[in-house]
């Protein structure tokens, strides 16, 4: 079962949330971030090249221009491969674990999988970010030594940064699965 809904992130950009219910015990949430805008790309490229041209008129060395082109290309490739995240996915499988995938604009995917035995809870936290108060969804991990304690807080959807309405949808779905998980582990 697949559903798509449109939300907005904390800066006002448009996000698309895709929900897939594979089975009662397996759900996936896919957030697509706004694409790289042509305007900002053109602006950065023009700035760099104007600066390079300025230096060229000062020093009369054509190496500066080639270096500027090189830097722009490398910078763009590096940005697409290491910085720009296109899509963030959260896959929650009952009694197996939670998997978070970030796909970059160049196609690279980086995945983290947390086993269900380590997950204590999934909560929405508040944070003060510059002059804003934002909400973020995070996974609390159990402390092996202290059963009531928390060893780590893993935030989810860090680059998409959706708003509270989107987070509530994801939170509700996750809690349904976690409730079942807790019921089975409590009966151990």
């Amino acid at each position, binding site marked *: 079962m697949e559903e798509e809904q449109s939300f907005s992130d904390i800066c006002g950009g448009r996000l698309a949330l895709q929900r897939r219910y594979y*089975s009662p*015990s397996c759900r996936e949430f896919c957030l697509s971030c706004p694409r790289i805008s042509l305007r900002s790309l053109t602006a950065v490229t023009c700035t760099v090249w104007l600066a390079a041209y300025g230096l060229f008129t000062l020093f009369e060395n054509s190496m500066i221009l080639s270096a500027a082109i090189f830097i722009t290309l490398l910078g763009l490739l590096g940005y697409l491969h290491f910085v720009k995240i296109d899509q963030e996915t959260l896959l929650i*499988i009952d*009694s*197996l674990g939670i998997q978070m995938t970030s796909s970059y604009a160049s196609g690279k995917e980086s995945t983290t999988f947390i086993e269900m035995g380590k997950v204590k809870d999934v909560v929405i936290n508040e944070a003060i970010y510059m002059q804003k108060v934002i909400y973020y969804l995070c996974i609390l991990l159990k402390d092996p030594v202290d059963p009531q304690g928390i060893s780590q807080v893993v935030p989810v959807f860090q680059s998409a940064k959706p708003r509270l309405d989107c987070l509530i949808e994801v939170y509700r779905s996750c809690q349904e699965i976690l409730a079942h998980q807790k019921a*089975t582990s409590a009966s151990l």
Partner: protein
Amino acid sequence: MGLPSRGAAAAGLGPESAVVRPGPPVVVPNPIPTLPPEGAAPGSSRVPGMVLKAFFPTCCASADSGLLLGRWVPEQSSAVVLAVAHFPFVPIQVRMLLARVQQAGRVGLAVLGTWCHHRQEPEESLGHFLEGLGAIFSHEPWLQLCRGRDGWSWSCKATRRQTPPSAATVGEDQIMLILYDQRKVLLSRLHPPAVLPDRQAGDAPASAGGLAAVFDTVARSEALFRSDRFDGGPVRLSHWQSEGVEASILVELAKWASGPVCLLLASLLSLISAASACRVFGLWPLSFLWSKLSTCGQLRHRLEQLSLVFSTQKARSPAQLMRKANVLVSVLLDVTLGLLLLSWLHRQDRIGQLADALIPVADHVAEELQHLLQWLMGAPAGLKMNRALDQVLGRFFLYHIHLWISYIHLMSPFIERILWHVGLLACLGLTVALSVLSDTLALLTFHIYCFYVYGARLYRLKTHGLSALWRLFRGKKWNVLRQRVDSCSYDLDQLFVGTLLFTVLLFLLPTTALYYLVFTLLRLLVVTVQGLIHLLVDLINSLPLYSLGLRLCRPYRLAAGVKFRVLEREPGRPLRLLMQINPLPYSRVVNTYRLPSCGCHPQHSWGSLCRRLFFGELIYPWRQRGDKQD
């Protein structure tokens, strides 16, 4: 469930190359997972209500019908299937095989269920036959996996025999089918996330987490994978090696040859280390020299590493094996680079050119120093120095430089020979060549080091004198017994002389301070260059090249974890996931497998360094023991 003639089943005679019909009906998973009824069978071997996970190897997905062999993990409610045993078989042979593997790997294997692959027109009898097998190899729960004719439709069913008085006699559970690549899981090594620094290492480790148990099971059952289908054993199995055992001629030859080679090299290395531990080298001048030269330190380090690699003991753990491999690759690369450097040096008689250039460079440095001293003896940067002290210090240092230049000129005929022989050391490795370079630099700038020491000692004397006399000026004294400043009554003549000396020292301070500043800066420059060379040597020493190469070419060998992908889902069919290995990121590879280096790290923090510089205490950077040279 109907059981065909028990005799036939017991004898294990089954249909040859079966023409079978689809197996048991497909199970529709319960949309709302519910807890089991209250009267669950006591001592049932699984967690009630938990989704049952079946780990199935991808290599067996196209295998013929047969029995599922593997391990059942009750705490995780997961069944790890390792192989499929095909018809015909004798049950007692299967049990013997499992017992043998269990003994070899200390892992509890069992027959988990049946696997049925419909290739052509299905037959009804197989379905009943398969169900009947559940009575022979009783296992709770009994899995029945089935794959349809078109290769797409999978179905799973797990049946549990519950003793009454519970209402249901057979429980059908939600099942997840997780496909995994057996070869990759067998060869990979799981690296658990780093333990938090404030926890001890042995503190309640994560209960061999569900996935670590899967990796562990596959790794321990290696005995099961040793036979392939050409072996003709009593039981015909399907697993990742059933098409032919994987082996490499080179690896086998290397293993066979490594025994005698290691023995030979180990004895050679022990001879060398015994020779170097000889008493002759313990005498004072030589031992002092050995401890100061970084070349000797590097050679000793390499000797230790080589004796580790060629030791005749087998590696006790995979981490040790990796370390040995890393050391070997690092040494090989080092020697290759060293030989390249040597060939480049000898190609156009560069050694001769270097030797010819050395003397003029040393002369040039000495000349620059002389100019510097002349500048200091005049009015440096417009400051007015104390004439007499200035002249004394300047002349003293100039004479020192003159001695140094004469010494260099005395050595000049022998320079080329020495360089040539020292250059041969480069064939031992690039790191050794760099250490030689660093030592040569230290030797050539020895006069700068001497000047620094003189200037620092003089300055320190001055600052100590000033602080003591300042205390006298205020009527206080340093109490050595109590380690504190106490008041003290001085005689008049003591006060007079003290104040006089204080003023003299105070007005001579700028001159000494300037000399100290200039020579400290020069010394710091030399130390920085030497430090950079040492950093490079440390980098080559400690980089785990084999691990990095492994991460690049065989990323599944070093696993940080796993990742799942949901495969095509048809409604009414069970959920299928593909489990893949998530490789370790490069930064963690370097951190985990980094080799121990010489350990030359600066022992001062920036603050204490500045403090020592301000008070004129000598600094010994890059070494825990004494000075660089004497």
